[in-house]
């Protein structure tokens, strides 16, 4: 089935079996191996990408559902020469060990910061009508859809806190 998805700013024409997930389209058909397949069931977050600016699990979406959408993967977040502030913060804070979950973690954090800036509430939000302050509890809760088996959670929290610029 013919589908055109704009990936990292470039329109990509695809002709795919309907069963191909967005994740497999990115990895296997477009060669963008940054997004990872961890559980393939929406439980680990390693496949997190931004679709029209919003973070989702690419494994739980069909590529054909995204005709005309704008998808941003880790390859579109920053480059080696010009790292995204979150990528630099992850390096500075040593926020990974295996690295397998890292692209999903960074894409998730990019989406999370935008959600918080728009005052989207979380389970950690005490006052649903006040502006969101990204406390450590808020960051942890908002990042709970990304699992890391190396357990670099404390340094990842520090990295995200650095970029969020909010009081701990």
């Amino acid at each position, binding site marked *: 089935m013919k589908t055109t998805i704009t990936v990292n700013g470039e329109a990509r024409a695809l002709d795919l079996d*309907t069963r191909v997930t967005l994740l497999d389209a990115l990895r296997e058909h477009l060669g963008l191996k940054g997004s990872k397949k961890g559980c393939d069931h929406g439980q680990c*977050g390693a496949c997190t990408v931004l679709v029209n600016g*919003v973070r989702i699990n690419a494994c739980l979406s069909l590529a054909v559902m995204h*005709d005309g959408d704008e998808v941003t993967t880790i390859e579109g977040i920053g480059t080696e020469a010009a790292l995204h502030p979150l990528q630099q913060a992850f390096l500075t804070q040593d926020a990974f060990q295996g690295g397998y979950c890292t692209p999903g973690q960074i894409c998730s954090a990019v989406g999370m910061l935008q*959600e918080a800036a728009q005052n989207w509430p979380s389970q950690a939000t005490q006052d649903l009508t006040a502006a969101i302050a990204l406390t450590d509890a808020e960051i942890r809760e908002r990042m709970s859809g990304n699992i890391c088996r190396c357990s670099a959670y404390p340094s990842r929290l520090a990295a995200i806190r650095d970029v969020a610029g909010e009081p701990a």
Partner: protein
Amino acid sequence: MKAFTYERAADVAAAVKAVAETPNARFLAGGTNLLDLMKLEIETPAHLVDVGRLPLSAIEPTADGGLRIGAMATNSQVAADATARARYPVLVEAIVSGGSAQLRNKATVGGNLLQRTRCAYFYDTAKPCNKRQPGSGCSAIGGLNRNAAIFGASEACIATHPSDMAVALTALGARVETLTTDGSSRTLAVADLHRLPGATPQVETELTPGELITSVVVPPPPPGGQIYRKARDRASYAGGLASVAVAGGQVVLGAVAHKPWTAAQAQAALAGGASHAEAAKAELAGAQDQGRNAFKITLVGRLIAAALDEAKQGRGA
């Protein structure tokens, strides 16, 4: 995953028509539950009609001071809605306690209501399950049933409904608006949307085949506090062992039955002047455990009393 054909519906009427006219067709909205089940070949539709881009995502006030939520609004959009945050905190709290942010960003309101049980035997295609394969038996009875129902179960099925949002919507007295295959619209209370399992646990709702939920209408909020409390094995991103929504005089329980469980006995006891602990006890007189889930009876008693205490203090009012 089994092969299937796919189409994107041009409008609401065309979507309903397409599902009605195509054998073994299903609506596809966010897909976070359906595609997961298709990967496991628990769901095997031959045709998907994508309704995700239909103009059914508006969240707008109703003339009487309530809120109409389009069925294709994402869970996140509802939780972020200023009116929902100010007037329906029980709904927002319930939504943000479900899934992860990534899932809530994709999952729709209609899909949330129609998500399927997380019973381990429903997911294990090597084991009998009356819901997955009618007549094959219930492996959860006498099996690993820690998450099973304590209210309204049957000899055919002891599964629970996993939605948090539906529990809050039931407490708020919300109704769903639908479009049926004959082109007519109707509404039914969220409280009446889901069925108890009885002898046909594979029939989970009162919707007719091909009927599409188009919106959810929440009446004006009741006076008093609103609370959603959920107990689970992890602090975040885990299904509930039990939950409770309190709004006005309504007390509704989650993850304890095949549907959001309106705690009618507790409500009646409260109306009669009972204490919060007495009200919980009145409800639990009708509970029946399955062995491994016996802890839920103690847990639910404490949840009901604690939530009523908090609501009385005006939290969420």
